[in-house]
């Protein structure tokens, strides 16, 4: 049985006061909160197991290594991947994307095209711009429609033999839109193009099976999945990861070093140079266990309820405009009220203890599309409640009144 009040007891921060009132945390798309089970896993690691991994012969190192590798198994299983070495631990989504973009420098040529979408996070734009600058390849952009969905017809017409790669997010962090990635991947593959999906937002809200999805690369961050900061993973098909050159040089990622020549180690070590975020990786595994103990079905249902409830009540507010008001979205709502600047709304909400994000959300092209300086973004997680939404709506109405 899904009991949101019982779940909230796992999250110490939800008891916090902000500006003398109870915290209402609606900035989950920026980072999720951390249950005590995950916090304790980190403490436990440092209290009992802390040790550098992989090459240590002593028991401490052996324990740390097996916990670290067990976490890889957890990630692999959770995301429906068959091989452990196809999971590369990274410091986050941005790092994962950069491993691929850097690797493609030696593969892409000036005759090639790549496709991204107009609703990408800067982390899924800038690395490809840098890649195009270095290789001379051309970047094409799938436009968005006014309802905040991708223009798939346009995408179809953009596919041609020159297109080697397609980079699209699973879910937009600004609009909440769930993109039809199955279709995007299928069309790309028919065109012999490879696909990287930015799962930073999707992974936290939708259970996916990467092998069934048949995606080429997928990246996500632990800190949006109830896990710690500074950890994420890159999934890639073995043969593709093997074909990419190593990204960073360092310890762990080589099998043999002389000054004349260096042999790279096998996957996943080839891409995990240096001492990794060991505690973080282990805690990431615990975070996935935690979310699975709640159940992604329950998470999706509850978040859908929150989304519908909030959308319905927001629409009653005078002058509100919701961006991306379609019926394929996760619990993220971007909006503006009248001509009020989002930061004015955000500042006042903060005084009521309500944490929302304001601004461009690292998606400047979306702002350019709607011709706005930014939005107020409320994003809900499975531990949020309808009564928090009531407080939020009430505060919004007051803010709007104050701003006149």
């Amino acid at each position: 049985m899904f009991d949101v009040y019982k779940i909230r007891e796992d999250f110490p921060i939800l008891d916090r006061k902000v500006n003398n009132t109870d915290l209402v945390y609606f900035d989950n798309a920026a980072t999720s909160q951390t249950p005590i089970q995950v916090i304790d896993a980190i403490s436990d690691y440092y209290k009992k197991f802390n040790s550098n991994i992989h090459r240590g012969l002593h028991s401490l190192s052996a324990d740390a290594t097996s916990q670290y590798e067990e976490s890889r198994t957890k990630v692999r299983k959770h995301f429906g991947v068959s091989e452990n070495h196809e999971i590369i631990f990274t410091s986050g989504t941005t790092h994962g994307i950069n491993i691929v973009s850097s690797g493609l420098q030696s593969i892409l040529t000036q005759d090639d095209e790549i496709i991204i979408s107009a609703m990408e996070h800067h982390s899924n734009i800038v690395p490809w711009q840098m890649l195009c600058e270095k290789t001379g390849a051309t970047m094409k952009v799938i436009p968005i429609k006014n309802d905040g969905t991708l223009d798939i017809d346009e995408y179809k017409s953009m596919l041609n033999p020159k297109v080697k790669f397609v980079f699209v997010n699973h879910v937009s962090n600004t609009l909440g839109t769930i993109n039809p990635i199955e279709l995007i991947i299928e069309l790309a593959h028919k065109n012999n193009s490879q696909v990287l999906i930015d799962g930073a937002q999707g992974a936290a809200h939708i259970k996916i099976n990467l092998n069934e999805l048949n995606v080429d690369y997928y990246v996500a961050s632990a800190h949006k999945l109830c896990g710690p900061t500074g950890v994420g993973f890159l999934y890639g098909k073995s043969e593709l990861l093997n074909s990419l050159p190593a990204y960073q040089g360092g310890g762990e990622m080589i099998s043999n070093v002389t000054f004349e020549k260096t042999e790279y180690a096998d996957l996943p070590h080839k891409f995990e140079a240096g001492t990794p975020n060991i505690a973080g990786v282990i805690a990431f595994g615990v975070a996935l266990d935690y979310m699975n103990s709640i159940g992604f079905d329950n998470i999706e249902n509850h978040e859908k309820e929150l989304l519908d409830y909030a959308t319905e009540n927001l629409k009653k507010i005078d002058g509100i405009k919701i961006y991306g008001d379609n019926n394929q979205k996760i619990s993220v709502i971007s909006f503006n009220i009248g001509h009020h600047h989002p930061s004015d709304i955000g500042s006042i909400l903060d005084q009521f203890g309500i944490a929302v994000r304001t601004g461009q959300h690292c998606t400047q092209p979306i702002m350019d599309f709607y011709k706005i300086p930014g939005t107020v973004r409320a994003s809900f997680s499975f531990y949020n409640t309808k009564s928090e939404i009531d407080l939020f709506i009430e505060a919004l109405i007051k803010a709007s009144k104050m701003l006149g």
Partner: protein
Amino acid sequence: MRTIQQIQNEIIDEFDFFEDWSEKYQYLIDLGKNLPNFDNKSRIDSNLIKGCQSKVWLNSSFKNNTVIFEADSDAIISKGIISLLIRVFSGHRPEDILEAKIDFIEKIGLNTHLSQTRANGLLAMIKQIKIYALAYQSKR
């Protein structure tokens, strides 16, 4: 003409009347509304102050040995804040502006009601004001 310090004290007295943060915010919002908008030709990038989440434009001129400031913002609370700064700084001599100690922000409790992002913006505004003053002083 009152000194920069006298004006600051005046503002501190005014804010003493407010009972809670919402009255302070309401006052800033009203100040923001009363500050005239720039025309579009002053809303240019070279007048933009870096470091604010909202856009803040600051312009200055030099008359009778004093610096005159004008400002605008696309966010109303920022505009209210900068209107306080204009009230404090505009019409004073460069050397007075450069020497001035700014204590009213703390004393009216604005710092605790501004997030780090806004507070950084505020610092950026004050810095830009002092840069203008320095420029005029050295031009003389």
